């Protein structure tokens, strides 16, 4: 098993430590390349299933450590941690490999065709949510690549813990994973890490990604910051049962991880006029209030509180004479905020369970509202009449949305979610084999 320098302690890894980790990861991968992909897959699934068992040692350790390490409430960690791993549950991983590579067996040289993962992938994982490292680690090993995980400052516990759980089940797999941490932008350490990697996969804002790309000689794949939203149609609002279900689902989508995920909705378009949107907002407010007791908010910085208070003040002190926004919030605390805005404009919120509700006369008005933000869109949750789903999905996909889910399931994507519109492993592997068109 590889040392996990700097992963959990307060000091970051040094350039020498990162170089040493990388140097050990590379030869470890040789043992992996000799093993059948199917066997690796089965082992990975064993590890995933043990994490999904709420009584497993790893799960309990994560639930114990993550609240203080990440600032999320213990209730939230207990509730939402499995959501970060469940996409890897069988048959998700095998299905992904088959879907993206044609047949997962090409990882073993199959029918003269061979897909090879890079020798070493450096994953720069964001720290906004815990356990975001699980998917990249598993996918890297599934394609027989070693992976160096650079943990985000918000979660330095999970990557190391996950690597240890792998090593315990399968020493060969464990030897191909190492977790470390350094302060993002530390040029000396990053130079060492970039030099060692064959592929760098990073998440960050556009400026950070451009900056890394410029310094990175390895192949680079960047995932920029994105924004998600929800859509509810008039048909749903006509049924009190469907409206209530939509409010319950949307409240959950907003509350999970305190809205820090890129699939967390920040706006909800409601087909109807302002009063109908307001009625829905009241229902939603009730749900958010219940959730703030069941899944309490995590820690917020002074700046985060101020951003939410500013969001509220802007709604409360909007221009007189025009129709005023409706502001609903958790009293004097900043636990949750809902603002119904009379004029639909696509603008984000300060997060921390803050949502803008925008009434729309007709869902056909959506495309021009989404057009200016096309490149920033990621997910959409929807509650619409069954007959309208296909048409709406088509509209959303055309507008640049990469993930569409029913309300309540926005934050539970399967591996088929093409984050940023890109495949997951197909972008990582390189191919070799006989050129079929060249056969004589």
């Amino acid at each position: 098993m590889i040392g996990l320098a700097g992963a959990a302690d307060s000091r970051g890894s040094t350039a020498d430590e990162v170089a040493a980790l990388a140097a050990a990861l590379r030869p470890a991968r040789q043992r992996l390349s000799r093993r059948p992909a199917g066997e690796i897959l089965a082992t990975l699934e064993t590890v995933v299933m043990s994490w999904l068992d709420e009584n497993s040692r790893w799960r309990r350790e994560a639930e114990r450590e993550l609240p203080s390490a990440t600032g999320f409430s213990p209730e939230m960690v207990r509730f939402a941690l499995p959501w970060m791993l469940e996409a890897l549950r069988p048959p998700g991983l095998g299905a992904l490999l088959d879907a993206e590579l044609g047949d997962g067996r090409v990882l073993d040289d199959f029918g003269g065709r061979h897909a090879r993962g890079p020798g070493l992938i450096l994953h720069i994982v964001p720290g906004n949510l815990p356990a975001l490292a699980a998917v990249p680690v598993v996918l890297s090993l599934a394609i027989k690549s070693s992976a160096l995980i650079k943990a985000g400052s918000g979660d330095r516990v999970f990557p190391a813990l996950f690597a240890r759980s792998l090593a315990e089940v399968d020493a060969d797999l464990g030897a191909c994973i190492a977790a470390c941490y350094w302060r993002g932008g530390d040029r000396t350490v990053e130079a060492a890490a970039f030099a060692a990697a064959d592929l760098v996969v990073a998440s960050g804002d556009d400026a950070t990604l451009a900056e890394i790309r410029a310094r990175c000689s390895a192949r680079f794949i960047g995932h920029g910051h994105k924004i998600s939203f929800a859509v509810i149609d008039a048909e749903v609002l006509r049924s009190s049962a469907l409206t209530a279900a939509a409010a319950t689902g949307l409240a959950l989508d907003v509350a999970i991880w305190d809205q820090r995920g890129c699939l967390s909705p920040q706006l909800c378009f409601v087909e109807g006029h302002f009063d109908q949107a307001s009625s829905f907002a009241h229902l939603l407010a009730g749900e958010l209030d219940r959730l703030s007791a069941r899944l309490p908010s995590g820690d917020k910085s002074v700046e985060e509180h101020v951003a939410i208070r500013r969001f509220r003040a802007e709604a409360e002190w909007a221009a007189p004479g025009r129709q005023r926004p409706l502001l609903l919030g958790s009293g004097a605390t900043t636990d949750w905020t809902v603002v119904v805005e009379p004029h639909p404009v696509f603008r984000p919120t300060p997060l921390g369970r803050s949502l803008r509700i925008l009434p729309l006369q007709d869902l056909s008005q959506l495309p021009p509202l989404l057009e200016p933000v096309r490149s920033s869109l990621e997910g959409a949750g929807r509650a619409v009449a069954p007959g309208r789903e296909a048409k709406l999905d088509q509209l959303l996909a055309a507008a640049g949305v990469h993930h569409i889910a029913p309300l309540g399931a926005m934050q539970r994507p399967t591996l088929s979610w093409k984050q940023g519109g890109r495949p997951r492993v197909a972008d990582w592997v390189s191919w070799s084999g006989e050129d079929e068109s060249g056969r004589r």
Partner: protein
Amino acid sequence: MPAVHGVHEEVLAFIEGRHAEPFETLALAVFRHQFESIGPYWQFCQDRGSSPDTVQAWGQIPPVPIQAFKQPADLCCAIPQRIFLSSGTSEGPTRRSRHCMPDPRLYRCSAIAGLRRFLFPDVARMRIISLVHPADLLPDSSLAQMVAWAVEEFGEADSTYAIDGDGINYQLLVDSLQAAERTGRLCCIFTTTAALLRVLDHARAHDLSFRLPHGSRLMDTGGDKGAHRRMSRNGILNACWSTFAIPGYFCVNEYGMSELSSQAYDSVIADRVRGVHSARRKLSGPWMRTVVLDPATLNPSSPGQRGLLCHYDLANAGTAMAVLTEDIGCLVDGGFEIVGRAAGAEARGCSLTLTQWTAAAEFATLQARGPG
């Protein structure tokens, strides 16, 4: 003379020390006045279940967030006589605050009384050298107005503005400082922190330093706003000593905002004059009280805890007395300390943040507008 509520007269008397009513009595009277005469504030209080019947102590008066000054719904108890705008440089031109004053006498009275207490408690007048623009060049600026009043009230006849529409007039500044050195006459420099940093850089680049007569002083304000670089408070104090021979105990940083009619000042001169030995902190006259609120609940923070500064400024009797800022600070020794300003940075996420979004949108607007 506009018709104004009698409570303004009471506040003026209180600030000038002609009125011995306790702060609380006046604050509750001002609250009633604002509740009754400012529609948007009445609505704000209604939404919180607060009224003159329920509010029993000044600390219960609902404070308006500074965003209330950024909206067109002017907080004003009568027709505005003067409108001051914030510089907007810290948040972009589209987010300027408007302070509509129905009774600018309150502002003048408070500004003069504050300066007398904290900048000129020991002298009646001295030569003022201002690096703040003359008020006729910046008619929207409450700071420029305050400096103009300071020149009237505390300045010698040869007080001067070493800045004009083209920027700092270094020659005039150097001549004025050298004249003070030569004649031994006291002078007071009024400056924004940004202009001060430029002057300090200029002095270093040209190897200039001055031995101003002891008792000369400097008031800077505005922090990083518009500054070409940053310097710590200690760095500024050291530089003021080495460049002007003004010791730290004559360097006063003023805390003011266009949304308030009163200011807070570094305690150093007032402490020295009163023979008090205490650490540098911000003090204001007894007509403004400052509390620190927990940003999570808006309840008062525990003593020494950081939180959001909230001011109860009687001189804002015509607008909004209780103002919740985004400045982070803590209470110390009868005054307060400013730790920083909450930039309104949103939660860490992989989501695009509102700040990035607004910056991008404003950039796009500026691009569309083109140069100039």
